[in-house]
Each structure stands twice: as C-alpha cells, then as structure tokens.
C-alpha cells in the first residue's frame, strides 16, 4: 500500500484559498469542485485529489499547513480511503470540475 493526499472537505470548503492546486507538482491531480461541500451547506467548493495520479510527495500538506494554515490535508494509506476521485470519474466543466467518488481499491 502507499500514501496519497486526502483533503478534508469540511475544512477546505470553509475557505477559498486553492493554494494546493497551484503547488502540486503533478498536473491534473489536485482539482477544484465548486459543488463539493455545497451539499453540506458550506460557502465554497473544495479541492480534491485524483488519487490515481498522486505520487504521495506531501507538498500539498506543507502548503496547507504552513502557507494556508488550514491543516486540511493529510497523507493516508490508499486502502484506508473509503471513497476517492479517480481520473476516469472526473468531468471538466466551464469553470469547475465534478467528480463521482468511488472506492480507489479494486477488488
């Protein structure tokens, strides 16, 4: 098993910083959805991780902890994630993306 970044929607959707999307070294990996968190009544959308592209470097954790000071991102073992975004389930829109969350572990 390996580590991937996991973003706490409740903390992320309370802010609107989007810094992690700008500092991830991998392209199309940390994406932003205007819808995520809205269903729980939060003001903003949330960032989320396409876990099939995450290399587990944890730069986003440093950015979220030290630059944004939100502490919303943690590294977790991929099999400990009940649901996550995968590239094949992500849809790009005009100004945002949406993702259908599924189990990231096959079988």
């Amino acid at each position: 098993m390996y580590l991937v970044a996991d973003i706490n929607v409740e903390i992320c959707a309370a802010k609107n910083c989007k810094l992690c999307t700008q500092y991830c070294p991998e392209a199309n990996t940390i994406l932003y959805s205007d819808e995520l968190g809205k269903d729980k009544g939060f003001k903003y959308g949330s960032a989320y991780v396409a876990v099939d592209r995450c290399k587990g470097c944890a730069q986003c954790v440093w950015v979220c902890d030290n630059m944004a000071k939100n502490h919303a991102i943690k590294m977790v073992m991929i099999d400990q994630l009940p649901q996550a975004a995968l590239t094949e389930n992500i849809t790009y829109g005009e100004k945002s993306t949406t993702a259908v969350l599924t189990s990231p572990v096959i079988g």
Partner: protein
Amino acid sequence: MSLDYVKFSNGFEKFMPKEYRDMVEHGPFGKKVTVSQMGSFKEVLEEHPMCAGCAMTLFIRLAMIAFPNPEDTITVGTAGCGRLAISQAAIPFVYGNYGDQNGVASGLSRGLRLRFGDKPKDVVVMAGDGGTADIGFQQVLHSWFRKERFTTIMLDNEVYGNTGGQESGMTNRGAVLKMAPLGKKFEKMNMVELAKVAGCAYVATVVPNNPRRVESVIKKAVLVAREIGPSYIQAYTSCNIEYAIPTDKVLEDAKAVENDRYQFQEYITEEAKQYLTERYGYKEFLAKPAAPAAAISGKV
C-alpha cells in the same frame, strides 16, 4: 501549429482516451488561463516519470500554463530530467542533442518566421543547468549574441541529477555531491550577468514557490522574444534526490534558497519595456506620476 492540430479527425473521437478528449474540450487552447484557475481546467501537461515532489516538475507545470499561446508554441529541450516532463505535454517538443538546444531553436525560430510571417509562433527552450551552462554553453551564448528571438529557460537544480550527482557549472562552491565527494572548487556561474552582457532583452530569476510571479515572468519573456530579442529565465528547481531534501520540505528549501542566492531579479531593456507597454498593454513600466508638490513639501 494551430488549434486544429489537437482536434479529432472526424469519426475518431470515440476512440480517443478520456484525457485527450478532456484536453481538446476543456484544455487551455484558444483561451486565456491563469494560475489562479488551476484545478478547474485540463492542463496540457500529462503524467510523466519525474520523481515525486520534484520542484522542476512544478515549475514546468506552471510554465506550460503561463505560455501566452500554448497552441502556437514549440518547446525545445535536451538531455536531462526536464525533458521527461516537457515531452509529455500537448505542445510540440523538439529534442536537441545534448547542448544543441539553442542551435536547434535558432533554426526553428527563423524557419517559423519565414513560414508564418508576422503570426506569432513562440519557441521556448527549457533545459537544465548542465545543458545550458556547461555542455550547451557555447550555443546558448552565441544564440544570444546573434539576437535570436526565442526564450531560454534554465531549470537550475545545481547538479547533474539525471546521471547520479556530478557537479555542474551552476553548483555552489563547496557543495559535496555523490559524484563530487571533495566538494566543488569553483564559484557558481553568474549566467544572469552573462545574459545581460550577451544582449538578452529580458532576464529574470525565479523560484517556483511564487506561482503568479513565475507566470508573469514567463509571459513577459515569451512576448519580448517575439519581436525584440532573446530572453532568459533562470529558475531554481531543486533536486530533492541529489540534495536529499524531504519531498514535503521542497518548498521550504525553495524559500530558503530564494532568500539566500535566488532573490527575484528582473532586467528588461527600455525597448522591451516600450514594446510590452504599447503592444500588450503592460502598465508596470509606465513612468510613475510625479508626486504632488504639496506631498513632497508636506512636512515643511
């Protein structure tokens, strides 16, 4: 070399991978995208084999977003880590044999001008410190002396990271590396001053921990190279493997190095300032309005 080169041939759309369809339908081609929109559009850079947490990858990702017209851009690279990612983007990439990249880019840039006339076609060289300051040094300098109109970006990780950690001209004096166990005996080359002396119209140094600045600097460098003259950007992109930087401390290291030896510098000729202001509406180079006389003598 236009928007059409990425589009599907009729009837082939359903056979293309999802990533490709996303790139055609929601990529940055033909639109203006900025780093503040990152995470909401499909980027041209795809998956690549570079190390986890590599700052060079982050810089390349930002650079690809900063290109003013990605659909009219060709990148040129050479041996080194950078080309592993640069070649994995939906932007044509030309591989210059080691050290040849600025020679290749000179011919390419001239050829594109002959073929397309005034229509801007940007050539951007992205090569490592070894490719730019050591092995390709002669061709880099001569392309600047000849005033070849394209952008040269040095991805300076201060080591030959791809081949096991030999010292390069850009390594700091005293640095001990796996293949330089006694420490480097000479100073880091001052390529920024060399670029100014050689006649570059725009020269800047950046670190990738300021995405908006990276974007702004690359845009200016590419635009200046369209008509005025060569432009040079030197970017600190640490090698977390050869310098043993934990991946989650890469940006902390970038900040420390920025404060130490990579302070932001920008050099731009008067001609380039005038061109950016008049042609592209840049306001930052306009003369500041003189302070009112009352404000100056306010304390009297």
